[in-house]
């Protein structure tokens, strides 16, 4: 099968350059939408060509990139990663639509988002650890600019620098982990440095490793990914960025949990023994994050901060699913991550709609939104209910699988997770009551208009997807299953 992933990855930087061509700056956004449209077609081609019965990587394209160091350009997808491609494209499309009327430097804004989209897709496609690292780090830079120039809060510069530095610091253990893996590869095949180095994930997965090295690698990778997830106590950048960052684009941070993906894709399969030995650490971090995020969310008075903490709570649940180390757990975890793109991303995009209308998402500025913006309020309720895992939404099967898996393997943590879900219902419903119901408390709310057709179309697509895959979850689960089975098989 010919290579579809490379054109997909090249499309975005090309689009980012092309955004400077149209004579009027506003036309850049049309171009961005066009690029995402093309990308959707390409991802559809990827999905169509994807064979759900195969366990390994598919559509692998490989070229030597820096042969002297054993670094390849290698991309491919498997059941764990393939679903993230359309989800990512959709979410980015949503961000463009939600910041349609960005006033300051619109060309730059849209081209930065396109670059970020390309880097994010690269993270999901990369099969070479250093190529992955390249995309991982590249995805930071556009966001640094987005946050510095279009941040909503007065401390946006601080938030942007802090975010970038925290992520760069998180990149250090990742790089060291990958280097140690490559050293081990060189030691095993008996070639010296740098000739024996290999960063190819497929090859690294087949290379045996001494137990103590495995521990070191796992801890390094876990540390690197934990910063991005984020895991308590490394999470402080997320609420800050949620408040200070560019409102629409922050949905990318809450919607795309790259850290959790990295854990499932790299950390556990590359160091399966150590990961299993440290199941208590994963489960503990997961449980604690879940409860901490929920309690902290209860105390928030701003919609965006609340969504940031609820994201912390949700990623805790994903960690629990991984820590179960069985098929149900990891399937649920991947499905949950895919769901987040629509649910958490969608919720944040809707708070961007609110922010655009009211200039704030503080509960003081809200209240009674349902009276003047019934459609927005209705969809928000739908997403809130989906986020709580209501049956009929696609979150339900994912949460159910994770809980089942956890109750079997870590009963205590599973019970705590159940409690956390109750807390989740509490903060979501409490928030909804205060922000959307009740009398109209604010003059701006009274004169704001409801969802525009563009916005309506966006949330409608997200809502339909959530509903459809809630009713027919097997279609997604079947895609994930072979790769998840292989993932579990590595552990024994």
């Amino acid at each position, binding site marked *: 099968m010919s290579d579809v992933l490379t054109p997909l990855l090249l499309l975005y930087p090309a689009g980012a350059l092309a955004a400077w061509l149209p004579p009027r700056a506003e036309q850049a956004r049309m171009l961005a939408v066009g690029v995402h449209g093309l990308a959707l077609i390409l991802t559809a081609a990827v999905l169509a060509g994807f064979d759900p019965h195969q366990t390994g990587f598919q559509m692998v394209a490989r070229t030597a990139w820096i042969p*002297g160091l054993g670094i390849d350009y290698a991309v491919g997808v498997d059941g764990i990663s393939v679903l993230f491609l359309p989800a990512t494209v959709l979410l980015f499309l949503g961000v463009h639509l939600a910041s349609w009327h960005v006033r300051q430097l619109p060309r730059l804004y849209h081209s930065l988002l396109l670059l970020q989209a390309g880097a994010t897709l690269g993270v999901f496609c990369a099969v070479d650890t250093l190529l992955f690292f390249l995309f991982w780090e590249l995805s930071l830079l556009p966001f640094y600019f987005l946050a*510095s120039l279009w941040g909503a809060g007065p401390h946006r510069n601080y938030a942007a620098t802090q975010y970038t*530095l925290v992520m760069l610091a998180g990149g*250090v253990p990742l*790089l060291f982990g990958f*280097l140690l893996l490559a050293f081990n590869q060189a030691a095993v095949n008996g070639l010296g*440095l*740098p000739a024996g180095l290999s960063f190819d994930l497929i090859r690294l997965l087949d290379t045996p490793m001494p137990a103590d090295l495995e521990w070191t690698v796992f801890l390094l990778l876990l540390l690197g990914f934990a910063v991005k997830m984020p895991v308590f106590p490394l999470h402080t950048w997320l609420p800050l960025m949620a408040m200070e960052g560019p409102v629409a684009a922050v949905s990318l941070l809450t919607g795309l949990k790259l850290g959790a993906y990295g854990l499932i894709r790299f950390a556990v399969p590359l160091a399966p023994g150590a990961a299993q030995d440290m199941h208590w650490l994963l489960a503990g971090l997961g449980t604690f994050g879940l409860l901490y995020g929920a309690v902290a969310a209860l105390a928030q008075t701003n919609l965006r901060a609340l969504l940031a903490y609820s994201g912390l709570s949700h990623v805790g649940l994903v960690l629990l699913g991984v820590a179960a180390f069985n098929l149900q757990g990891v399937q649920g975890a991947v499905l949950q991550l895919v769901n987040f793109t629509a649910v958490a991303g969608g919720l944040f995009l809707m708070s961007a709609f609110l922010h655009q209308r009211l200039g704030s998402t503080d509960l003081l500025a809200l209240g009674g939104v349902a009276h003047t913006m019934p459609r927005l309020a209705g969809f928000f309720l739908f997403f809130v209910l989906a986020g709580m895992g209501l049956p009929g939404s696609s979150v339900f099967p994912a949460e159910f699988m994770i809980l089942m898996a956890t109750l079997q393997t870590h009963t205590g943590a599973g019970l705590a997770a159940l409690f956390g879900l109750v807390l989740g219902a509490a903060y979501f419903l409490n928030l909804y009551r205060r922000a959307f119901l009740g009398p109209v408390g604010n003059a701006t709310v009274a004169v704001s208009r409801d969802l525009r057709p563009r916005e309506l179309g966006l949330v409608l697509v997200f809502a339909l997807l959530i509903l459809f895959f809630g009713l027919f979850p097997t279609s997604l689960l079947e895609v994930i299953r072979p790769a998840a089975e292989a993932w579990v098989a590595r552990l024994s």
Partner: protein
Amino acid sequence: MTELYWTDHAAWPLLASLQLLPLAGAALLLRLGEGPLPAWLGRGIAALELLLAILLYDRFDVHAAAYQFAEYLPLPGPFAYHVGADGVTVLFVLLGALIVFLLSLYSLVRGLHQETRLIATLLAVEGLMMVQLCTFNLLWLVAASALELALVGYLVGHWATSPQKDLATSRFYRFQGLGQLMLTAGVLVLGWAHRDHFGGGWTFDLLDLASQPLTPRLAALCFFLLFYGLGVRTPIFPLHGWLPTVARHGNVALAPALLLGVKLGLYGLVRFVFPLLPEAVEAWSPFVMGFAATGVFYAALLALQQTNLRALIGFAVVSHTSLAMVGLFALDPVGLQGGVLLAANFGLAVTTMMLMTGLVYRRTRSTRLDRLGGLFDRIPMIGLTFFIACLAIVGMPGTPGFDAAHLVLEAAIHQFGALPSVGAALGNVAAAGFLLWAFQRAFLAPAPAARAAPVERATGLEWFIAGVLAVVLLTAGFHMAPWLDLVEAPMRALAGRFGHV
């Protein structure tokens, strides 16, 4: 390593023309006097030199582990003319020619006074730089180095941007003068030892000296003298005292780019000190490492406290040079490759930052961070190029800094264990911290209220300068293989002297 004569690869002595062309050009320009035409002639010569450098790269055989394009001319006594190039030479020649070419364009943008004389000085410095890069004779090295530094000092004083230029020049001459003295003394001791041992005439040829046995004490003395002399030039902690003053009170871009862009100090270490004194290098490497490790953090800390962009970049350089030293003194092929590439990468990146700062200075007449801000809207390309250079220094993937830093870290893990390497890598993140902060203050923060009119947009020539640098940094970053190939063979041979294969 063996030598291949220029007749093997080229139709004419390429290295000689690389050295003579800019020197002859400088003399011609001085004779012609001021005027737009001579200035453009000078730029043409700089461009021609760049083409020659590219030709050298094109003809160079990367797989032969030999000095190539060698030329020999018996001059009286110890002054024999003997030159040759390995991959590292080619890399630095390319870098130097590119930097001087861009500086000659930059002088046009800035509209500095006595333009022709400025370009003549630049060309003369370039010629002397090429002499130092190509020569095997240490006497030639010392002489060219002294002349070059004298000219750079003139550049600092004559085209200074600050009334305190005397402070800058006197500090520069004092530090460099002492360094040159040490370097000369070291070279003389080496030559004397050779004559003492073998008898016959005096020689200062690298290939002759490299074969002589030295007692450990004498070797240590020579190492100290040479290391001090080259260390001041580089500069490395704690010999960097001249840099912040010169950066702040001298020219914005000219002299700093010449001194820091082509890191002749590190080049001298690799080309001369390592092959000449392998035992001493090995014995003293723990101390050098100690200084380098301290330097990374000390300079990063000072950089964080600067309020002037130029001084900040100055300290940033000291911090990063230390990282390159870590790579070089790991003394294995991977580390040496990484160290050399890192030196070239930092050179290019720092030059970029200095040039972009110069373009900003043209508009704001200040490089104080509180007087900058609000620039990104007006001059995005200059800002973006500055940012790319920041990333190259930090070692972000996609810039040449990444592969080089990653090689250095690989070597460091092997030689010194994981913990110090993690420390060095975190030092790099600290560097990222102050650069990102400076970039934000200078370009992204709101414009200061005192600025009356919005700054002028970038001219075509400015776009060109910024664009060339950005493209070179990014292409080298994404396509690193040719540069790795270039330095691999010589560094593998050099590592062989330290028992690493």
